[in-house]
């Protein structure tokens, strides 16, 4: 009786994974295909699309823009997330649940709503659209992720550890450097990596709030109008996919190491 249900669960899981990841597999498949038409059968192996990317200046500009936005977003949202996480883990204050809930809300708010609302507001304020308005939007949606990651890092940090350090003659700054930072550092790095990845991949907010300086996803979208460019988009997508997966694996590995250091269960999902 039991083995039947186990068998069916396995089938279900396998079908589910295929459904989830088969389209993603198509990306690298066509990126190495010689034909410009995205269709089977495959016509031959080539790396010319990847080489072509090397010589596309507009792509490099877009990549540069994405890097500026991604790095700034990661730094700002991790900093804000660290403040919020420490406050919510350490202190009790009136309205705490509500305030934390409001900060976490962008996590579930449709991005298109956020994007349109921000656009309307920026127009009303008369602020010109630029990479910085994109950074603003990205910080808004990335900070909740930072808070979630760093909260678990701070919660694992027993308050008595910091007190013990202080009691043993260490200064407040020394306590931060020798106890607090080493214990939350993996969480900080994990937060930086995840927020950077989210910003790098984000399209809707970037599309609405960017001016003339486009980010990588917006650039990719603009290229989709030209069928001849499709294979290079596939190539670019393949690179982005690989980088994203790599960063997320790194982030999760770091988070688990941090949890293991503090002797916390490591199977819990971070976000």
């Amino acid at each position: 009786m039991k083995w039947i249900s186990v068998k069916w669960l396995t089938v279900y899981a396998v079908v589910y994974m295929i459904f989830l990841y088969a389209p993603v597999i198509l990306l690298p498949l066509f990126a190495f295909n010689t034909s410009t038409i995205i269709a089977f059968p495959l016509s031959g192996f080539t790396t010319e699309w990847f080489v072509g990317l090397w010589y596309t200046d507009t792509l490099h500009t877009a990549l540069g823009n994405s890097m500026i936005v991604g790095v700034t977003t990661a730094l700002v949202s991790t900093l804000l997330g660290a403040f919020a996480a420490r406050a919510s883990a350490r202190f009790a204050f009136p309205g705490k649940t509500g305030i934390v809930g409001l900060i976490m809300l962008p996590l579930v708010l449709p991005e298109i709503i956020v994007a349109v609302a921000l656009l309307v507001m920026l127009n009303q304020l008369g602020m010109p659209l630029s990479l910085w308005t994109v950074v603003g939007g990205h910080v808004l949606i990335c900070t909740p992720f930072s808070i979630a990651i760093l909260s678990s890092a701070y919660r694992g940090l027993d308050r008595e550890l910091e007190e013990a350090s202080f009691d043993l003659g260490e200064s407040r700054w020394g306590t931060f450097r020798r106890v607090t930072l080493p214990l939350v550092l993996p969480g900080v790095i994990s937060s930086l990596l995840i927020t950077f990845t989210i910003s790098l991949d984000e399209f809707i907010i970037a599309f609405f709030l960017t001016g003339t300086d486009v980010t990588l996803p917006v650039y990719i979208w603009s290229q989709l109008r030209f069928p001849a460019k499709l294979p290079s988009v596939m190539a670019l997508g393949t690179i982005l996919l690989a980088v994203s997966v790599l960063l997320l694996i790194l982030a999760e590995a770091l988070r688990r190491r941090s949890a293991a250091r503090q002797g916390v269960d490591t199977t819990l999902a971070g976000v």
Partner: protein
Amino acid sequence: MTRKDDMNDSIKPMIEIRDVIKKFGTFTALHGITADIREGEFFSLLGPSGCGKTTLLRAIAGFEPPTSGTVAIAGKDMAGIPANRRPTNMVFQSYAIFPHLNVEENVGYGLKTRKMPKAEIAREVAEVLSLVDMKNYGKRKAHELSGGQRQRVALARALVMRPKVILLDEPLSALDKKLRDQMQMELRSLQRSIGITFILVTHDQEEALIMSDRIAVMFDGQIEQLDTPEGLYRHPVNKRVASFIGVMNFLPARVTALSDTHLTLGIAALGEAQVPRDRLGKDVNPDKIDTIGVRPEMLTVLFDQDERSQNKVKGEVVDTEYYGDMTYYEVRLPGHDKPLTISMRNTAGRSVVAPGSTVSVGWGIESIVVFGE
């Protein structure tokens, strides 16, 4: 006992606590605490949770500066001096072993802040680790240690700083009963051999009695009684202290006659008794006497009609609890509803009396504690 007290009185107090009040918002955690803690003494702060004992400990450590009042350590007022510059070190309830450092690094943590040379730190750490019997565990991380081992590391980390006072915040509460008993003995003998002042916070009256030279019993942010374990047990100042320390049978009583030297008490179920006036506590006003207390071991179940006792009352055994070496009897006496608890050592000739039997209960006037507001 007396000799030791005399000796201690001549020593200047290590900690002088004067009128310490601590408020958290509208809640007052400490209502004006005054106490002296002597040098080299094992001192306990005992009380139920929420009585302010941990707050007082943290005020001494420098984590909770008093709202008003002073704490002086070794003759020096500690006002404005934060925890990292006080001659005290704490053993935390969670032990707070730094998880990213090994045992040696944990123990050497405080010495490093003092910019002590590495070789010297290593020597000091090795010395203190062997003192707490942990010298083979220097390279272990916190998560590779048992509860008892963590406790030793936390103690070593405090001891290595050579503080004037070691503060222990319920350090044994996380351990199982057997290990706790063992650690109580170890902690006590270690404190005796090194002679550092220890202040222990505990809610476990048995632990406080076993380990302490003196105990401050706290309720609702106040010290109700400060005394030796024996003093607390034999002469509790009021009913609250009496029922918190050990088991106490309470019986209503009132003064029926007064003379210059004695007063006569009418005690429910036990009858009349003459008590010398000098046996009353300083605070007891003869007009307000309403209760007496008597410890279970001060009452006797008379197994043999010929057994002698000052006074005898007949009663009915309601229940028995057999502990091997001891038996606890619940005996109801006529004229008092609540049965009295009587503990009897089980000797070779005696068998446990079954519930329902009628027995004689013997009691002596010297075992009675008189209470009145």
